[in-house]
């Protein structure tokens, strides 16, 4: 009786893709950026990443325990949120700030709106903006090699294009938040996710292309030294700040991005336009996090407009 036939109703072919699988893969994809952040900024960065991740998981566990809900810390979504928040923190920020951000991300942005799949904006970015508004000084103080200095984006904002080194920015030897500095490390993680089919190019692709077009055309209006489609300016804007981390890992969050294909393209274009607007004409040199959470809020509208018609219904008039 070894070859027992198993008779069951459909479905017979089951996908192995689950929430926890995907989240685990995203966590792995974030490791290069995390590792480079730790290499770049030292133990402070490692401690910050541990604190934000642990607090996020712990908050989720305690909340679900107290509310008598199913414990979902096994699905790694809290790990991803905590890790992303940690990568968005400056390495010099006090640890309690990271912990506070994690509690805000999980408790207020995620769980109070119904947990995984129900949050209306990216929890890590919601918490980052919460901290950015609350502690503007500490959240924008970047120390690199023992010196407090402006980020490359801040140089660009001041119109000092010549003082940024694109090669350093590509590798990540620049001041910034823990995970955003190294474009190469982020791209390695992104390629890993693309190869697994977890993310596709639609959102990050349209995001980056729109952004490049926008700053290529309008860069000259914010800075007189920058020409029309100035290659050095575009490279510096692309590699600086949180654009890469945001485009590949945060804009592509399943929960807060549109599910329709045309909607994802609209979403990417909105992201690119907003980021360009904030960076070139806004008060601050960085604008990725605000652009993403504002676009998150537009997602229900985008989905409503781009919902495909079911076959056979509502023919053309």
């Amino acid at each position, binding site marked *: 009786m070894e070859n027992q036939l198993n008779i069951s109703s459909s479905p017979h072919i089951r996908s192995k893709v689950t929430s926890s699988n995907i989240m685990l893969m995203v966590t792995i994809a974030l490791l290069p950026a995390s590792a480079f952040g730790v290499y770049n900024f030292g133990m402070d960065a490692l401690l910050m990443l541990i604190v934000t991740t642990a607090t996020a998981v712990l908050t989720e566990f305690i909340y679900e325990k107290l509310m008598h809900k199913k414990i979902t810390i096994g699905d790694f979504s809290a790990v991803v949120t905590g890790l992303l928040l940690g990568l968005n923190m400056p390495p010099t920020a006090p640890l309690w700030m990271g912990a*506070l951000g994690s509690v805000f991300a999980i408790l*207020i942005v995620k769980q109070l709106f119904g947990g995984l799949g129900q949050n209306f904006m990216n929890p890590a970015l919601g918490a980052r903006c*919460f901290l950015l*508004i*609350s*502690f*503007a000084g500490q959240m924008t103080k970047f120390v690199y090699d023992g010196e407090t200095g402006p980020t490359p984006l801040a140089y660009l904002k001041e119109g000092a294009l010549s003082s940024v080194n694109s090669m350093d920015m590509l590798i990540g030897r620049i001041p910034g938040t823990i995970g955003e500095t190294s474009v190469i490390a982020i791209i390695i993680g992104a390629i890993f996710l693309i190869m697994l089919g977890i993310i596709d190019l639609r959102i990050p692709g349209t995001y980056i292309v729109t952004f490049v077009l926008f700053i290529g055309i309008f860069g000259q209006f914010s800075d007189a030294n920058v020409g029309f489609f100035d290659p050095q300016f575009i490279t510096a804007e692309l590699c600086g700040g949180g654009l890469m981390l945001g485009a590949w890992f945060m804009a592509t969050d399943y929960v807060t991005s549109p599910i329709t294909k045309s909607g994802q393209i609209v979403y990417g274009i909105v992201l690119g336009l907003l980021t360009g607007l904030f960076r070139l004409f806004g008060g601050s040199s960085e604008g990725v996090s605000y652009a993403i959470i504002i676009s998150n809020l537009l997602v229900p509208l985008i989905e409503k407009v781009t919902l495909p018609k079911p076959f056979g219904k509502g023919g053309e008039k």
Partner: protein
Amino acid sequence: MNSCGERLKNGLIDENPIFVLMLGMCPTLAVTTSAMNGIGMGLSTTAVLVMSNMLISMLRKIIPDSVRMPAFIVVVASFVTIVDFLMEGYTPSLYDSLGIYIPLIVVNCIILGRAESYASKNPVLPSIFDGLGMGLGFTVGLLAIGAVREIIGAGQIFGKQILPLADSTMGKAGYTPITIFILAPGAFLVLAGLAAIQNKVKINMEKKGKDASKIQSGCGSDCATCAGCASTADKGKE
């Protein structure tokens, strides 16, 4: 007098304009950056509310039904103008910090709402107490929101520093204010949090079958006089 006491309790607890009726949200969210602003706004609204409820109740048989809204607005606007000038004269700093929200009391939905739903249908004395109860309920709500926002957002209460601030340049440990709480998003967070806490307490009280009247912090001795929980019966009446 029984109905007067009941009106007070109704305004403070059963139909608290902020936490239960969710009325007057614009001033609630905008001016509660500190406890003092909350009290100032609450008390000036209470003054207008009591006076307008009284006058509208007196005039309730004279005002024709078809033009009652303009009539109410005229009455309310007159009292707001008086309060506006009095505050400008006697409490200039509070007047400055409340700004446009003093004249905007005219269109505060609590005042028009009480005029429409209570004062225009009931005798003078209960109307006065209805205004007083609603006004005090509004004040307690604003005070609670303002105090929480001021403590978390600045470490102060009524302008006094109660939490010693951290000073990184001198290496002094202490409290770092979470500035977002005295900015606009903080108002929403605190309002939602307090409303959730008070709902939780209310539900627990009802479950245990206890008197739900002692839940409002800052309600003070007034709670002793209000007995019984007649919220459902009262809502049915209106």
